[in-house]
């Protein structure tokens, strides 16, 4: 990149918008291990536009498709889900050398850490209502006609589970550096006990959890973030991920530190119009922890291959992986052979 990053952004926006553009307040947002995320204001034609730019990193926690992320935002922005407005998709990289996209910035919110004690008090119940209600609305959306449908393969209803399991088991097979008997036992269990076909084909956010949304500090969810793993599949996949014990503070029985499990399911059912199937959900709950472990195993490999530079990759590949081993062992202990 000739010149600095800021100059590259200014040159790109000036060219695409056909008007001289400057930027102010550029800074990188920490977290978001699968994309470099920057915030800034663009000044164009006397107007100030608060923006977010998400660029592919040299090494990533997970390989994701920025086009499906962009189209997921396009599918839900302005349709009852607090998805930020997607503005520009640049897949060639252009002035910034690596693919990126630009979206509108939603200010005034905070993202809670999944590891913080009581992250939403005293508004936990209200946040939970919004969180699981929004997830229900995503699940309820009719896929045909959504921009997501243009870019994502639609699996058959009875193949949703297999596609996801094959993908994440493949990640573990490819990236495992030290043998992992616990997650491998869970994968075998999932193969032995396939779930029923999905009730409907839905957009699956892919990483819908505490920490991946902004709330206003008074119980209202104002932005659903991090759609980079979005795809089409079984709506129970997102529910299983959102309710994984990893995303709840230690010693807190509420899912995501928000509401009870029964309450979360009630809210989700009401918003989605779908029926919660406890037997199918056993499968998707175990799968969620397998998927998590696959991501952490992959991040440990990226940490090593990338020259040990990104501490978030190390934290995920080590600390979070250990926690998920405990969760998986506990889940396996409750299941039949």
């Amino acid at each position, binding site marked *: 990149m000739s010149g600095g990053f800021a100059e590259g952004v200014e040159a790109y926006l000036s060219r695409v918008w056909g008007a001289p553009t400057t930027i102010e307040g550029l800074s990188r947002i*920490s977290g978001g291990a699968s994309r470099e995320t920057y915030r800034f204001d663009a000044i164009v034609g006397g107007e100030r536009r608060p923006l977010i730019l998400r660029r592919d990193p040299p090494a990533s926690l997970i390989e994701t498709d920025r086009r499906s992320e962009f189209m997921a935002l396009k599918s839900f922005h302005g349709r009852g889900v607090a998805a930020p407005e997607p503005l520009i998709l640049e897949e060639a990289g252009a002035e910034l050398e690596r693919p990126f996209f630009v979206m509108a910035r939603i200010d005034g919110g905070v993202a809670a850490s999944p590891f913080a004690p009581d992250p939403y008090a005293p508004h936990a119940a209200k946040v939970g209502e919004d969180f699981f209600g929004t997830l229900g609305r995503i699940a309820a959306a009719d896929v045909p006609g959504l921009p997501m449908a243009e870019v994502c393969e639609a699996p058959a209803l009875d193949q949703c589970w297999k596609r996801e399991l094959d993908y994440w088991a493949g990640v573990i097979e490819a990236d495992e550096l030290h043998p992992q008997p616990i997650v491998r036992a869970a994968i075998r269990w999932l193969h032995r006990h396939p779930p029923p076909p999905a009730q409907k084909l839905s957009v699956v956010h892919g990483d819908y959890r505490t920490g991946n949304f902004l709330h206003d500090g008074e119980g209202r969810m104002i932005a659903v973030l991090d759609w980079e793993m979005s795809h089409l599949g079984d709506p129970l996949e997102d529910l299983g991920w959102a309710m994984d014990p990893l995303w709840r503070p230690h010693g807190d029985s509420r899912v995501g530190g928000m509401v009870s499990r029964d309450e979360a399911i009630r809210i989700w059912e009401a918003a989605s119009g779908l029926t919660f199937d406890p037997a199918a959900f056993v499968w998707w709950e175990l799968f969620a922890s397998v998927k998590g472990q696959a991501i952490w195993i992959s991040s440990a490999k990226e940490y090593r291959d990338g020259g040990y530079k990104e501490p978030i990759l190390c934290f995920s590949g080590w600390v979070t992986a250990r926690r998920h081993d405990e969760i998986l062992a506990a889940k396996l202990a409750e299941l039949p052979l």
Partner: protein
Amino acid sequence: MTPTVREILQGVAMVLATPSPPEAGPMYDASRKGMASTLAVLAAGEAERLAAATIAENADIRAELGASAGAYDATLGGRLAKAAANTDADLTTPALDGVNARLRRLLIELHGAIEAAGDVDGHRRIVALYGRMAVGRRLPLGG
């Protein structure tokens, strides 16, 4: 283990030695260094506990391999018995880690055989072992 304490501390050193690019800004830089500091503290605790935890895990796996050695075909049973009879002679962390990797591979193979045989008791024993392995490697935040 993955990553090793050496790799974790190499990463911490890289973060401290390499300035963030100017576009990152001071908050990002501080957050990155804060996370590196947390990793360093956790690595210190891991360095204190790791050898003992790996020796305990290796012994636990060997006990299970030994208990199951007679129940399966002679080829697998022979390998299980041989592994069960070993001890950890080299107590350096890389050596313990290497032995642990070999024992874990055998455990994976054994568990697959137990499942194929429909051996519910054997399955329960191994799942209980997984629970002990996971707890034995628990990382108490704060070191």
